């Protein structure tokens, strides 16, 4: 027996020595270190979908902005600057938009980018209809190629936000995609319209080229040295986006310098723990307009009463949310975030139980509401929401309101949002804007819809509000449109459509010893726009 145990022990020890001796050190795991490349690796919650006609979530945005070029490019102040389109003209009635395309842009395939690619990309986006198609679908009637470098967008109606929306219109390589259509698919003679090809390749002209795809693990790419707008020598030579962001894994990878930045979904506790463990870890912020709102289903009594809604505005402890639950947040004071065009502060809520009681007394439900059970649903995949829900529940109990908190998976919330009867009475939701113009947010959140989505679970169904939104969208002049947007917000403020709670920045822990990460563009995905990121591998310890 003793001999057996000794043998077992020796075998185990030998195995440990062999594993530790031959296992990859952090440097080995860089994969590209031997080529002297610098690398930027970041985690994400899911595998990105970088087909511009399909993807629009956060993970997709990170890849899209780096691999494809858009017609115009977002600026730090919320505007746009010429990009693939070097200039444009808008007809007086706002129905015709002519774009002049730069002549010096080449795709990664070597094909020349022309007006034909622009027209093809828009037609493909509208036909497939996913991703950012919603920004154009209702408004663009047709696209005409005037010549190789001039293209015309004909709109169904005058549509003011079009220019801003075009920052999310990414141009694909028509010749390359057409050569790679799958034989069978949902698009007739176009087969699968190249959707299958774009699951594993890119067809863009952006500063990075996808060269390695491991489905459900990671996507990786290298710098496009011939990029027409130039790349800095210190921009990373390679990027990797991992499709997993488990807290322990992220912390481990950061400690081993196998990750240059965390994603924005790490919990406050994990971020604090990482920052405490290494003084070279720093936080980078990007206020992209994300945050948290208390949504109230107007079709479910007593939320149809403005004063009940007002009461809830005073039940939120904004300081506790912004300082403790969602650190570095600021109180949100309008229905749209403060980085969007036309923002105006219209809410002045504070945590005040006396004011909450006073508002409740003005309500038509003043005598009955204390006997009602108010259902508050929170998304089980966002633990921070539970803390906010519990805080509101506790505060509501102090004035005699009976709130029942219910945990639902996100898929259930999405499924229930289709109908006002199944949409939650109270819930917490965040919408991060895709563009810096408020128009799309007003449409998705507030305009009346037959079938609901999680974005409009307030079910306002107010024709007056619809009219204000529809009018604002037709205004081409930017100052006039901003004023029209402000009017919408004032209307929402007066009628207390929902309760905005906090604007939360993306909080990213990064390796400050060898990475410069300072997001410049306050839009989803642009925190990791690699031309704004510098990596210095020689400073790596």
């Amino acid at each position, binding site marked *: *027996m003793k001999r057996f*145990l000794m043998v077992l022990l020796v075998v185990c020890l030998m195995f440990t020595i062999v*594993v*530790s001796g*031959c*296992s*990859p*050190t*952090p440097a*080995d*795991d860089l*994969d*590209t270190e*031997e080529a002297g490349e610098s690398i930027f690796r970041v985690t994400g919650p899911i595998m990105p*979908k970088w087909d511009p006609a*399909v993807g*629009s979530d956060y993970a997709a945005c990170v890849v899209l902005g780096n691999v494809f070029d858009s017609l115009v490019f977002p600026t730090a102040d919320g505007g746009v600057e010429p990009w693939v389109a070097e200039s444009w003209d808008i007809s007086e009635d706002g129905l015709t938009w002519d774009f002049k395309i730069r002549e010096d842009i080449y795709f990664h395939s070597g094909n020349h980018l022309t007006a034909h690619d622009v027209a093809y990309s828009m037609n493909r986006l509208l036909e497939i*209809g*996913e991703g950012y*198609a*919603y920004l154009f*679908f*209702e408004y663009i009637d047709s696209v005409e190629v005037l010549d190789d470098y001039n293209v015309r967008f004909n709109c169904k109606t005058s549509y003011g936000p079009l220019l801003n929306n075009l920052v999310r219109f990414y141009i694909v390589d028509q010749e390359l995609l057409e050569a790679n259509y799958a034989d069978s698919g*949902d698009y007739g003679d176009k087969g699968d319209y190249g*959707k*299958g090809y774009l*699951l594993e390749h890119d067809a863009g002209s952006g500063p990075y080229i996808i060269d*390695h795809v*491991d*489905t*459900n*693990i*990671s996507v990786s790419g290298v710098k496009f040295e011939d990029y027409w707008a130039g790349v800095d020598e210190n921009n990373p030579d390679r990027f990797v986006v*991992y*499709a*997993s962001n*488990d807290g*322990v*894994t992220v*912390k*481990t*990878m950061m*400690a*081993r310098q*196998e990750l240059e930045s965390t994603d924005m979904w790490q919990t406050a506790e994990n971020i604090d723990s990482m920052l405490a463990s290494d003084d070279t870890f720093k936080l980078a912020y990007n206020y992209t307009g994300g945050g948290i709102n208390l949504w109230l289903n107007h079709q479910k009594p007593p939320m149809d009463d403005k004063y009940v809604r007002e009461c809830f505005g005073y039940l939120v402890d904004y300081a506790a949310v912004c300082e403790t639950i969602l650190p570095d947040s600021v109180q949100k004071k309008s229905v749209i975030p403060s980085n969007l065009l036309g923002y105006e502060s219209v809410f002045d809520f504070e945590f005040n139980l006396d004011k909450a009681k006073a508002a409740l007394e003005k309500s038509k439900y003043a005598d009955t509401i204390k006997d009602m059970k108010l259902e508050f649903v929170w998304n089980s995949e966002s633990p921070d929401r539970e803390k906010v829900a519990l805080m509101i529940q506790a505060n509501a109990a102090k004035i005699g309101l009976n709130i029942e908190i219910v945990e639902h*998976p*996100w*898929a*259930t919330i*999405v*499924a*229930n*949002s*289709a109908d006002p009867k*199944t949409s939650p009475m109270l819930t917490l939701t965040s919408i991060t804007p895709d563009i810096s113009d408020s128009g799309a947010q007003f449409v*998705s959140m507030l305009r009346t819809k037959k*079938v609901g*989505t*999680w*974005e409009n679970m307030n079910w306002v169904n107010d024709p007056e509000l619809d009219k204000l939104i529809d009018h604002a969208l037709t205004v081409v002049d930017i100052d006039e449109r901003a004023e029209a947007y402000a009017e919408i917000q004032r209307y929402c403020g007066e009628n207390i459509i929902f309760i905005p709670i906090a604007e939360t920045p993306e909080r990213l822990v990064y390796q400050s010893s060898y990475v410069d990460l300072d997001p410049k563009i306050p839009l989803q995905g642009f925190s990791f726009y690699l031309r704004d990121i510098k990596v210095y591998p020689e400073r790596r310890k």
Partner: protein
Amino acid sequence: MTIITTIVKRLGGAIVVLLGLSMIIFSLMRIIPGDPARLALGPTAPEEIVEQYRERMHYNKPLPTQYYYWITGVLKGDLGVSTVTRRNVTRDFAEFLPATLELVIWAGIPPIFFALLLGVLGAMYNNRWPDYLIRFSSYIIVATPAFVWAVLFMLIFGYWLPILPSIGGRISMKFSVPSVTGLMVLDALIDAQPAAAWDAFLHLLMPSLALALGHTMQEARLTRSHMLENAGKDYITMITSQGVPRRIINRRFLLKPSVIPTVSIMGLDIASIFGNAFLVETIFNWPGISRYAMNAILSKDINAVCGVVLLFGVIFILTNLLVDVVVIILDPRMRQTRTA
């Protein structure tokens, strides 16, 4: 003949089981709330596009018609398109199943020997310190879920002693291994890349160990208790009285009947790893079928969920069939019963 008859009978029954399973899961996925077309295309997709999608996927047809379209496709090997990966579910299976299979092989087969070894040791040294040690550690190990072990291993071997890879799936990106069997270590060896095989093995260590620990110790306890139970039986007393050495009694007369219940449990354990591996796969960014299944469920990816449930059904049936065959081989009474 007995084994062949058993296999044929069981396979016949399996068809009925799978057909019933397909009907249940298909109905369930359509009964739960939510418009699958809207879920697939996202909240912002224009209603016209959603309607086109509904039409294409037959979601606007009655349930039996939908089932007919789906099962016809399944019988032709077409499980439909996943809304999460945007690829055919069959292709997803081809990519993700081998990853979990490799994990299950490493988490399931080598631990069998450890389980038997520890079980025998526990029985041989009953109520002495090796037995106490095995029993005490098995309480702790069995009671701790696999994902806790995964997190602990990640912290110990990835964070404190950074000797094992922490993320990156099945192999480091610097290696390129052509897929032959889908099992990364084996494929690397076939391609004569020992360094890649070693790298793949290191990627496997933590997740497979996390999955293996619990059921290994459970099986060890089971083997031990059956060994002790059989040790008190008359035939052992008789053989002992005839002067047969203890070593031979243990190996030839005690171990074989004692492992039969353990083998039955092992079959179920190995099959259950497929279903339970999703947290471990998530922690280690392992591109396996369990993680794929979990993502599909959370996203209400109808085709993927139905496909995965059918696949897991097939795996359970085949594993149980294999266990039955092994038990028939090990246990002569089973052969006699079936012959009679």
